[in-house]
C-alpha cells in the first residue's frame, strides 16, 4: 500500500473486476483514454488475472486507486518502463465519476510520481494526453508536468482528427517542487 493524502495505491485484486468492466464500458470514462471498442468481462478478467497473478515489479507497476476510506475509484500505473533511460510512461483513469474534479486524481498522480522518483529511481516520467482533455491537462500541469510536443492530428474519434500532447517531468524538477512545497508557509 502506498499512501497519498486523499488516496492510497494498492495492487489490483480479482474482486475489482466488475468495477473495471463497468468503467471501461462507460463512454464518459473512455472518451479520452483511447479505448474505442467495448470491453468484455472475459477480456478484462484476463487482464486482471495476468496483472494479479504476478508480483508487482519494475516492469509491472499497476495500482488500484482507493480513497483513504477504502472506496475503489480508479487505476494508475506505468504502462512502460525503460531501465537504461530510467524513464516510465504513466497512465491514469478515475473510473468513478463521483470522484472527478475533487483532487483525487491529482493526489494519485503525485503519489505515483513520488514512488517513481523516490523508490524506483526514475529520471523522467512522461505521458500523452488528448489536447481536448482540459481537465486532465490542468491536473498534469499542477503536478509539474511540462508540455513538450503537440502531435498534430495524432488520433481520430468522434468524426475528426485531434491533437495529442506529450508531457514530461524530470527528477530535478520534481525535487525542486518538493523543496518549494516544504518552504511554503
Amino acid at each position, binding site marked *: 500500500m502506498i499512501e497519498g493524502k486523499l488516496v492510497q495505491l494498492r495492487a489490483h485484486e480479482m474482486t475489482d473486476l466488475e468495477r473495471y468492466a463497468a468503467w471501461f464500458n462507460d463512454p464518459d470514462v473512455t472518451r479520452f483514454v483511447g479505448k474505442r471498442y467495448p470491453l468484455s468481462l472475459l477480456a478484462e478478467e484476463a487482464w486482471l488475472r495476468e496483472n494479479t497473478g504476478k508480483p508487482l515489479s519494475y516492469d509491472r507497476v499497476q495500482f488500484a486507486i482507493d480513497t483513504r476510506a477504502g472506496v475503489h475509484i480508479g487505476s494508475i500505473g506505468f504502462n512502460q518502463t525503460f531501465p537504461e*533511460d530510467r524513464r516510465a510512461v504513466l497512465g491514469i483513469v478515475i473510473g468513478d465519476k463521483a470522484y472527478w474534479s475533487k483532487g483525487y486524481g491529482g493526489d494519485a498522480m503525485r503519489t505515483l510520481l513520488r514512488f517513481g522518483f523516490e523508490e524506483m529511481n526514475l529520471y*523522467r516520467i512522461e505521458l500523452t494526453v488528448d489536447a481536448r482533455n482540459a481537465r486532465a491537462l490542468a491536473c498534469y500541469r499542477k503536478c509539474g508536468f511540462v508540455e513538450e510536443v503537440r*502531435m498534430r492530428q*495524432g488520433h481520430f474519434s468522434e468524426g475528426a*482528427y485531434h491533437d495529442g500532447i506529450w508531457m*514530461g517531468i524530470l527528477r530535478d524538477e520534481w525535487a525542486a517542487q518538493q523543496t518549494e512545497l516544504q518552504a511554503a508557509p
Partner: protein
Amino acid sequence: MIAGKLVNLRAREFGDAERNARWSSDRELLALTGHRYPQSLAAIKPAVRGYASEPLSHADPRFAIETKDGVYIGNIRLSDVSSDDRHAQLSIMIGERSYWSKRYGSDAVRTLLRFAFREMNLHRVELYVYATNARAIAAYQKCGFVQEGIRRRAYYSRGVWVDVIVMSALACEWSEEAR
C-alpha cells in the same frame, strides 16, 4: 518491390540476417538507432526468418533497402500502425556506412512515405530522432517532416541524457511534386 529513385524497397529475406548481425556490432550505429545491445547471428536469424515468412501487410510493413544495383544497405519499416487513427511510426537504418550522406536514406524515406500515403492510405507518419543526430534531422526535414516538439532527456546513451525530437508528416500536407 517498391521503386524509388536511388533505391528499391523489397520484402525482407532470410539471407539478410548475416548483414544485420554485422550492422548490429557497429556501436555508433546502435547509439543512433536506440539499439543498445549487439545481437548474435543466432538471435537475429529466427527474427528475420519470422519477418520473411509472413506476407507483408498493413500490420507490420518492414522493408530491405537496396540500391538500384541490388546492394542491400539498410532497413526501413512502419511500426505501431493504428488502423483507426491511420497513423504509423517510421524508422530507418542505413547499415552500410559507405552509403551514408549520399541521399540513399532520404530516397528510402520518401519512397516509403509515398507508399504510406498513396497505397496504405495513412493520414500521419511520425518518427522519433535523437537531437544529437543532426544529419538525420536535416534529411527528415527535406523529406517533408515537421518538428513537433522535444521530449526532454528521454534517451540515455554514451553517458549522457539526450533529447528526443518528435517529427511528423501529414497526408494533407504532403505533395510528391514538392519533394
